[in-house]
């Protein structure tokens, strides 16, 4: 399964339950136990991107 190019909102979803997106010069991936909706993905990724970094 190839990844799709991230769309305008900055992330790509594969298989419904995995997403990949640019993160501070690296790449981050999220695997969910469910298949989030587009708005749920956006909220989740926003949470990750805006969290304090370590």
């Amino acid at each position, binding site marked *: *399964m*190839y*990844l*799709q*190019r*991230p769309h305008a909102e900055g992330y*790509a979803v*594969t298989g419904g339950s*995995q997403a*990949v997106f*640019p*993160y*501070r*010069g*690296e*790449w*981050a*991936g*999220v*695997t*969910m*136990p469910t298949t989030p909706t587009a708005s749920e993905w956006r909220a*989740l990724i926003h*949470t*990750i*991107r805006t*969290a*304090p*970094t*370590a």
Partner: protein
Amino acid sequence: MLCHNRRELTVLTLLAGAGVAAALVALSCGGAARQTTEARITLGGQVLDVWRDPAGRLTFRWEGGGRDRTTYDPATRTRVDIVGGAADSITKYASSAVAWGALHMEYGVTPPSVAKALASGHAAVAPPSSRGRSSSARTDYGTDLSSLAAAVTLSFPRLTSLGGYALADASSSTAQLPGGNSGLVVSLDFGLDAQERTLSISTSRPFRRRTRTPGARRTGACISSARTPRATR
């Protein structure tokens, strides 16, 4: 009365801590033994075979588990999961507590229970060592994000919960993939039930250009190992 109870609680806590410490010492002192010791522990109707070799390394195998087993070296806090006789993954734990927490999750054992079982064990032949080398190496930090941050150069979100699930485990790893090295991967797992409630985040250094191949992208062990075209960045 409250003060008295607190004192009793403190004493009990100290005694419990001393017991665990004694078990850890007993396990680590197994290195002084001259032969491998084998013991059996029954857990919920299942039988777990435990070995301690002359170097103090422990091996755990469920009865009927064939060549699948786990070795754990208390001296280096290193665990090797062996599948079909071959090393499948190597994990180094940031602390003994995290290591035993993981072993307890999988095998239901604690340092005292293992020490007690081995104390009444018998001499045995050590199980065969694993074949080959693992393609992945991982360091587990439990929920200690500060230690993880101190050990890696990657930026990662300092999240203690995500989507309503608490942070369960933080780790760094590297893996050898058909297309090359995955680079450093930081993983954060949220939720206690790995089957239903685990969320994970990984950040990774991308493949070096010369190692990027379509095959590597397809077979990446971690989704974050894959990458989209650089032109989109």
